[in-house]
């Protein structure tokens, strides 16, 4: 009896501060976002008008919003796919193959992840510049000027240029993550399958991939959240959503509406949609990727 009281006190003391901070600085503000999405408010005056779901109705017909939605989805898909493929490829190479200087590569690959997004934006502006940029000058050194592009100027390419920076930033992080989970796979599995004559590719698909599957699933959620987040920070610092809205993403459009178009409530409605969208997408992906968990 005494033990259970003590236990209760212990649990209470340990969880309350965390719960308080979480409530105060994350849950309440999130509820505020939801609440303000039902109002029309300029942001400065005290003149808040309740408009119900009107902001969401407007969203539905706002082509600029639809475009930022498309851009965001495109980024999530492209960045996730490319990053996962590259990260798995390189983590397999570094764990399974006896590579000279493996540690060196691991250290280098992780560097972009520790840089501030402000710095990354600066770096990629220097890379993508049409005349004095590293990329176009590099191409001209090898005499393949035909590949030179207006990386941030061509509306068909700009969003992919942004995704290039995001992939660059993310590959090392996920690679290290997959490496650590691959390192836990017992070597005996591979030895056994080697004796059965399985090649690298077979081994990869029958051992490595199934055993790190759960890890990959977890990272998919990270991908959704971090792509929405980082694409905004990067776009703000690099293109401001231009040219003509072709790199506008969810959050940059939300900021634009809330601040420069003095439609704070409308901005929050966009926030709500982003929140629900990322939640739903994660849930769906979680469902689709469900496999029987293989234990080792």
């Amino acid at each position, binding site marked *: 009896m005494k033990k259970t009281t003590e236990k209760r006190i212990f649990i209470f003391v340990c969880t309350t501060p965390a719960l308080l901070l979480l409530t105060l600085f994350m849950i309440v503000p999130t509820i505020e976002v939801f609440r303000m999405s039902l109002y029309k408010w300029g942001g400065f005056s005290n003149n808040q008008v309740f408009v119900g779901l009107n902001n969401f109705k407007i969203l539905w017909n706002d082509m600029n919003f639809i475009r930022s939605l498309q851009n965001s989805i495109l980024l999530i898909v492209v960045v996730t796919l490319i990053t996962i493929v590259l990260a798995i490829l390189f983590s397999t190479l570094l764990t399974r193959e006896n590579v000279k200087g493996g540690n060196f590569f691991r250290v280098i690959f992780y560097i972009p992840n520790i840089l501030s997004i402000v710095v990354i934006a600066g770096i990629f*502006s220097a890379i993508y510049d049409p005349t004095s940029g590293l990329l176009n000058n590099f191409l001209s050194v090898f005499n393949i000027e035909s590949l030179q592009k207006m990386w941030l100027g061509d*509306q068909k390419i700009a969003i992919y240029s942004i995704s290039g920076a995001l992939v660059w930033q993310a590959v090392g992080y996920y690679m290290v993550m997959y490496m650590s989970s691959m390192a836990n796979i017992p070597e005996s599995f591979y030895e056994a399958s080697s004796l059965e004559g399985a090649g690298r590719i077979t081994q990869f698909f029958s051992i490595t991939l199934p055993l790190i599957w759960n890890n990959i699933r977890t990272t998919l959620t990270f991908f959704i959240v971090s792509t929405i987040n980082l694409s905004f920070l990067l776009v703000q610092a690099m293109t401001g959503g231009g040219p003509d809205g072709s790199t506008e993403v969810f959050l940059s459009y939300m900021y634009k509406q809330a601040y420069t178009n*003095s439609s704070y409530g409308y901005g929050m409605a966009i926030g709500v949609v982003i929140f629900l969208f990322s939640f739903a997408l994660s849930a769906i992906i979680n469902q689709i990727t469900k496999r029987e968990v293989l234990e080792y």
Partner: protein
Amino acid sequence: MKKKALLAGTIALLSIVLMACQDKDNAEVSSNGGETTKVKQTLHVAALESAYGKDMWSKIIDEYQTENPDVKVELTADKNLEDVISPNMKAGNYPDVILLATGRKLALTENLIKDKALEDITDVLDKNVYGEDVTIKDKLIPGFTDTLATNPFNDGKTYLAPMFYSPTGLFYNANLLKEKGWEVPTTWDEMWALGDKAKADGISLFTYPTTGYFDAFVYSLLLEVGGPDFYNKAMSYEDGIWETPEATKMFEIIGKLGKYTEPTTVANANDKDFKKNQQLILDNKALFMPNGTWIVGEMADAPRADGFEWGMTALPAIETGGDRYAFTFFEQIWVPSAAKNKDAAKDFLTFVYSDKASSIFAEAGAVQPIKGNSEKLTGDNKLFYSIYDNGAKAGMGGFAATDAVEGVSIADTLFRSIDSIVSGDKTVKEWQKNVEKVSDQLRPALK
């Protein structure tokens, strides 16, 4: 061992932070206490630190304080003024006088206009200039207080006073044209002819820093195609105005100009890289760009072609003998309704137009629309400000104020789309249709 050191470090830091916080609180309490004991009135002036620099404001404040020993002026001057003052404004701490123009990216001034949060200063214009026997109205160049930029609700009441003005137009390398023996085009037909000639020499006719610079350009062009009456109708979103033959002409000219635009322009037409576009003029890679007089100071440190010499011209006329316009921007100074010291603020407004103040501003290159001011200028500035002496007409004032309409922005639709026109991602027809649609959406929201 390492861990302990880390812990000790964090604790040391923690105590520093706590001390710092305490210091700050103490300081604030004492300063509050100080204010109540003194009779001094505090006037809070906030000014955007633009290309003219911050010093001129310090000088103005010093001068004003010498004249008014019982007024203590606090100055906030910052390049990102909005970032500094708007959090404080949300917190209820409004500056008493703010110099911040409309047309800024964060649109703080517009937001306050939309909220009707500016003080009516019509009466200030009829007051005498500080220490002088002439009213402000009589001292200003006529026309500057009759525009939507000063009277945003078009009701004859002035809410924003005109400060530093700056003619805009097409900027070019005068020396390059001289060397090549090319004339500065006076009509658009001459412009296209010059474009083809320049192309043969590997020079593009046109570039622009960002699409934001098209505001003055489009306004001038609207005035050229339709005259002032048409212009005001367009600025107040009259139904169908963007589908008239005049407007169509305007859209088509810009569409054609897009074909003569330097190819890397769009890629650099953002707030981070726009200087690379301006550099194209200095490097003789493009002939003309829309810009304002601040360009000279802004690019002062940049390398340039031998013999480079700034030139500025009004927009070419639609036809020979037609009107040519050069739009003029001016920064506005205004008093927020929520200011605590409105009378002191209005007093300060009369001071900024005094001879003393205007010569301090002029030293820094900031020119107020005061009669006779342009004659005192020297160098490039004399050339720029005398543009109106050479037959060009001055355009002024932008779009009428509206309530915020969710997801709708005339600036985005009218100017930002030009990137797509140049790159070919949108047709001129689509652009025109979108502008009319947005105009339709904004009309009911007019104040």
